């Protein structure tokens, strides 16, 4: 009981996933290119849209990891 309370209030290593999520989203040189195209969409656009989905998965992973 005490252990779960601690986990809820404090730091969890799972939060590092958020750091990854932030770092990639905020580093434009990483995705500011047209190649490779996907279905005719330049990398810049499809990668960021893909990153939305990846981020949502990260958040869900953290949710289940921290909540249980």
């Amino acid at each position, binding site marked *: 009981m005490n252990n779960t*309370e601690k986990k*809820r*209030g404090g730091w969890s290593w799972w*939060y590092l996933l*958020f750091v990854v*999520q*932030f770092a990639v*989203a*905020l*580093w*434009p*040189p990483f995705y*500011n*290119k*047209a190649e490779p*195209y996907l*279905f*005719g*969409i*330049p990398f*810049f*656009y499809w990668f*960021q*849209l893909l*990153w*939305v*989905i990846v*981020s*949502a998965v990260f*958040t*869900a992973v*953290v*949710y289940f990891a*921290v*909540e249980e």
Partner: protein
Amino acid sequence: MLELNWTALIIFILLFGFITWLGFAAARWRRGDLDQLHEWGLGGRRFGTVITWFLVGGDVYTAYTFIAVPALAFGAGAVAFFAVPYTIIIYPLMFLIFRRLWNVCHKHGYITAGDFVKGRFGNRWLALAVCVTGIVATMPYIALQLVGLQVVIGAMGISGTGLMADMPLFIAFVILAAFTYSSGLRAPASIAIVKDILIYVTAIVAVIVIPYELGGFGKIFAAVPAQKLLLAVPGPNTTGAYSAYATLALGSAFALFLYPHSLTGILSASSGKVIRRNAAMLPGYTFMLGLLALFGFFVIASGVDKLPEYAAGFKQFGNNFAVPALLLHSFPAWFAGVAFAAIGIGALVPAAIMSIAAANLYTRNIHREFINKNPTDKQESHVAKLTSLIVKVGALVFILFVPTQYAIQLQLLGGIWIIQTLPPVMLGAYTRWFNSWAMLVGWAVGTFAGTWMAISVKLTNTFPLHVGDHTFPGYSAVYSVILNLVVAIVLTPIFNAMAANKTPVDQTVAADYQA
């Protein structure tokens, strides 16, 4: 001039009629005593995961977003996509900070950020600064929602001269004011569901049908000029478009959850768990927003901006007419009506939440603090209802008599102002280390510096920060809030030393922040 589009207009009016009924009926939904402020202004804190999803979605992704983001993509290209990393960043913030705020606000019956700051730091003047900033930043935001509404009304070919021209907007606002007054936050919560279904249908259909009509995404992107397709690669000694893009995303994300309407949406959730779940589910909207941003390129590829029948619309509304023109051009009139109703209703939902949030702030942190210290529940909710009306009338007057450009510029300044409340509200959720007077000085310095930066670049977003012979163009909100923090950190030990024996009481304890 655009011809009156009867089919679209009838669909629009029918859907508007439906949500009007829904807005009034919402008063009886999960019935509570609407004479209590937390019932009227927070829906009784009873919204579960799904309703919160719609409500916060209605907060973040407003009608103006649906018009302005594609318009920016159409006009300026890749930079408009900053809305995607921006909305990627907000959810971890929500996950980490806002469930703590929810817990403590629930425990102590706080309804606004000002309530929290007062309770946490025991400084009514700091609470007042947070409150006034919130109200001032929200007003132009409400006004901008009307711009979205104006554009779609114009796109259906309604025109007139003088006061008659503004009649539809006026009617829409009377409806909005009436159901907000009678139902409180329950009204936008229920209407948000209808709005989202319409928006999703529109976005999904459009993102399939329009590229098909235009010959595929390959052709669409081939039509986009090279300088709009990607961010410009920075030259030597500057971080150029890269730092601008990243700071815009970062600053907008932090600003967003400091706006009063975001907190209202979040505090109305029934538990901290609901908020965490939503942090994982809300990116569904971000994905759609990204798709909508691509509409700007659809406009370029379709060439509707060069068609004579839309010239008048572009002349009147500028690039904001890009999306309506595209919808009119690509779809039968009835579907354009559905899409316009989605945008129009999409304006009413956030406008309602914003006016409720501003009303809660005034009621709790100005009226109760400085005018009537011991109101009854009924008096308190009555003040809030009246204030929500005044706020909306103010926004309407603003949009009718002041050029739209001013509303846009004020909203830009609003983002810079609201982020200055970050230390007491967001950091306050974690630490009480800061001295409240130091934060108040930091707030004043940040507000002043941010406003000065914005004005020095003629009210655009990006301020070129020179350090040595390097330039770091970035969002003024980010630079000014860093200055704000530095001031607060430097002054805290000094102020603490000066008033060592009279530390105000913290109403909250560490356990209040946890589930």
